[in-house]
């Protein structure tokens, strides 16, 4: 098992592509995407609307090494600031296979 950071980013579905592109720019191409995520925050309730899933949230989870994190976080921070969302980082062990 390898020590990694588990990063959980929750943003509006509309920002999905933006975030994934920013991750890619830091060579973090592997991720997991949880769909159908609702939430409540400073910008009010976000939930699937009949017209377009664009007002829902998604959760992007990625396992990555500690080193790359700081830089990556700086790049997504402005997006979180502008459009809302949260980013939680925790410790985890990755089962290498």
């Amino acid at each position: 098992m390898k020590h990694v950071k588990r990063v959980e980013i929750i943003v509006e579905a509309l920002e999905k592509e933006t975030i994934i592109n920013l991750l890619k720019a830091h060579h973090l191409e592997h991720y997991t995407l949880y769909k159908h995520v609702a939430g409540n925050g400073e910008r009010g309730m976000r939930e699937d609307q009949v017209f377009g899933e664009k007002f829902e949230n998604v959760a992007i989870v990625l396992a990555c090494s500690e080193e790359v994190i700081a830089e990556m976080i700086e790049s997504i921070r402005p997006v979180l600031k502008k459009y809302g969302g949260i980013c939680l980082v925790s410790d985890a062990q990755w089962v290498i296979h």
Partner: protein
Amino acid sequence: MDLNTLLTPAVLFFCLGLTAQSLGSDLKLPTDLTKSLTIYLLISIGLHGGKELAHTQLTSALPAISVAILLGMTMPLLAYWLIRLSSKMDQFNAIAIATHYGSVSAGTFLTALAFLEMHNVYFEPYPIIMMAIMDTPAILICLIMVFWMRAQSEQKEINATQGLQTIVREAFTNGSILLLLGGLLIGYVSNDKSMINVQPFFDQLFYGILCVFLLAMGMEAGKKLNDFKKVGVYLVFFGIAMPILGGFIGVILGASVLHFSIGGATLVGVLAASASYIVVPPVMRMAVPEANPSIYLTLSLGVTFPFNVLAGIPLYYYMAKIAV
């Protein structure tokens, strides 16, 4: 025109949805069902319009198209000016709301069609094309306005130009508009024989499916009713006055400039009066992130839409009767 003829099944289903929501019922239509119904209605109306157009000369549509572009561009400016003049709302929320009134609500338009058919009123096919066109100019005007506001306030955007491209493309390749235009085109080029095969699905089921759609819309509108306090009394008033003004302008243009029949003029009134809740909101969310979505969604879905379905359509019809 007595009450009984106003209460078509379609309008009654809308009321059922409103009621269910205000009783706090757990009634819920699957989201994918409502999306599917929307897709069906857009294609059907496109096919229908296309078939009608096939029997006319294309150039005869030009005046209607010009009026559509004119309405799409001036209604948002008019709405913006009214909001700013009469309230203290900030620029960004004002333009986001205003843009909705330049575009068209498919649900309102379809309910108007059902209303006219029920009263055996003839209408021209052109308003269907106008409907497909109007969203784009409204969105473009909004983008220009926002660009100018930002320039003034010297604000900078992340990837400003890339963002603009995305938004313009969104306005042109929006799924709903493609379905409508695609349906129009397919209805136009297909010969009558091959259309007969698809008519049981796209024509005969239309009004039944519209009922289920309006049931869903009633529930959505009902949800927004609870947000009334958020938008305030003034905006509720605006959400009713604006469509009346728009309907009036539309009917006049339809009757005098386009020389439409009563039915056609009613439909132009509906185009001008209604506010989009499908196409415009997600575009606004991208183009004007400064604005609060719950305000413009509440206004278009919770105020203007129910007003149009329940009172606006017969009113514009009444105006058209006088104007034509």
